[in-house]
């Protein structure tokens, strides 16, 4: 019985954290892209634009919810539901940390551990294609249909190199369960090199990492593969006819997919929630980072470049120093530090996603499909072959 209660509490926490992260990921994206393009991004709503996601949510909820008369009602309403459900379902198997003890109960920081965890993720991402395809078809609009067909074809084409890139580190860790994959990456070789799959003998999975990341860009319809929803080519692609909450669902689904791909990359290749350095050094790095950030904020708060930063920067500095102090408490260390490492690695990958969006132009559709079938798929097969040879012979 208490298993159900604990699971419900965990599901509630994960859902809450995920939805907040989704909203603020959009804020981070807009600020980072703005700074790449030498402008400021949202800065009016709240300090440094931090309340912008709240304003966006209020706008989306209060917008008029249209049901155009020419659409196929059942599929029009089913499509965003499918997209969001599949995107959020894949978070349920991701391990955020090791086994912890909270108020006397032992529980893992993971909603559920399937022994076919990797296959579950692949299955859910295959089903996510339907949200896009149905949205385009139900809209009864040629731009939407074209965008949806292109997007669906792109997603299923890049599923193949993705699955092959996933298969290569599985040869090294010998299990499909996500929890055991992370556990197989514990330990340090030569005393300092982490035993992550990307560094592991007999064959460091560097190429699999690159292939998986590229396929992940294509699966989530991000630049450079975002022609199906490019604004200047196809009006808005498959979500042309959607407004207000249904449009917000597609948006949420895209960001949730991004978070899922980044989390799976971290788990498969970058060691999950394991720290970067062994022992005490690894435990001191997070508080050191936050303390440094806090001190920098406080220093700049004394002579701010802009007038309004006189009040916001010291506050941020104090918040960072507070977080650094929390990370030093030994009682909370077992819970907070693995979470920090997982969040830091996932955050670094999400920053890479946003960085690439701000930097690269997009592929033309035939270049995109040619790249998948003529380059990425053979390279993924070759990578799997070499990994297999090295594992079998060494």
């Amino acid at each position, binding site marked *: 019985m208490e298993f159900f209660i604990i699971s419900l509490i965990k599901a509630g926490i994960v859902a809450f954290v995920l939805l907040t992260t989704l909203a603020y990921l959009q804020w981070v994206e807009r600020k980072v892209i703005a700074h790449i393009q030498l402008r400021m991004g949202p800065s009016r709503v709240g300090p440094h634009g931090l309340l912008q996601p709240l304003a966006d949510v209020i706008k989306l909820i209060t917008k008029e919810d249209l049901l155009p008369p020419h659409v196929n009602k059942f599929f029009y309403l089913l499509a965003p539901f499918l997209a969001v459900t599949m995107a959020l379902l894949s978070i349920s198997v991701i391990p955020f940390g090791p086994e912890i003890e909270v108020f006397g109960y032992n529980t893992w920081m993971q909603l559920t551990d399937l022994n076919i965890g990797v*296959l*579950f993720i692949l299955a859910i991402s*295959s089903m996510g294609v339907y949200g896009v395809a149905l949205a385009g078809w139900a809209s009864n609009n040629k731009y939407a249909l074209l965008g949806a*067909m292109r997007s*669906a074809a792109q997603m299923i084409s890049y599923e193949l190199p993705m699955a092959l890139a996933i298969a290569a580190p599985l040869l090294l860790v010998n299990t499909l369960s996500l929890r055991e994959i992370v556990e197989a990456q514990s330990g340090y070789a030569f005393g300092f090199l982490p035993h992550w799959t990307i560094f592991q003998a007999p064959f460091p999975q560097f190429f699999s990492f690159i292939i998986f990341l590229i396929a992940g860009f294509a699966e989530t319809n991000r630049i450079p593969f975002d022609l199906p929803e490019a604004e200047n080519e196809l009006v808005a692609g498959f979500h042309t006819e959607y407004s207000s909450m249904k449009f917000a669902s597609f948006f949420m689904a895209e960001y949730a997919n991004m978070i899922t791909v980044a989390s799976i990359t971290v788990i498969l290749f970058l060691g999950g929630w394991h720290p970067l350095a062994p022992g005490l050094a690894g435990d001191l790095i997070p508080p050191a980072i936050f303390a440094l950030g806090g001190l920098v904020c406080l220093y700049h708060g004394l002579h701010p470049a802009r007038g309004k930063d006189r009040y916001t920067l010291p506050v941020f500095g104090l918040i960072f120093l507070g977080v650094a102090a929390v990370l030093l408490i030994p009682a909370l260390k077992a819970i907070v530090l693995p979470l920090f490492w997982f969040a830091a690695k996932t955050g670094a990958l999400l920053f890479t996603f946003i960085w690439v969006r701000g930097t690269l132009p997009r592929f033309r559709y035939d270049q995109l499909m040619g790249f998948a079938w003529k380059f990425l798929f053979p390279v993924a097969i070759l990578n799997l072959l070499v990994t297999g040879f090295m594992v079998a012979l060494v």
Partner: protein
Amino acid sequence: MDVILFLAFAAFAVVCGINVVLQSHPISSALSLIGVMGSLAVLYLLLGAEFIAAAQLIVYAGAIMVLFLFVIMLLNAGSEAKRGRSLLVQFMGVPVMVSLLGLLSYFVLRLFPAAPPVRFGNFRGGSPRSFGEVLFTQYLLPFEVTSVLILIAIIGAVVLARKEID
């Protein structure tokens, strides 16, 4: 708990199956078929076949049905026009089918020897490890032959669907 899950998903599968046959637009039939495959995946999980459940979702519901959907959208297949059916078929069709089904079910339930009831977790041999152990040792030849079969199918499909270069 097993009974509730089985009945719920079996009912969903049968309703979707009837929908596949009765709907006039092919896309509705295709979506109902996806519903059937999804509920069958849950039933496979109840029977302890975890790898097959995941393969069903990845291969069948995630790739084959997407292919169907693409072809339907490409050909812009509209609703099927109702052709006239003879009076005999209209009145005797469903009762004959139901009686055939009843006969089959009676024989299955009567002649089938008593088997242990299906409980979730009773059969542990469906994991990918045990599946792979048998597939790559005892059934290696069929495995290799099916890969050649898929290669032939790819070549055939590409040749058939190619645009003619005039």
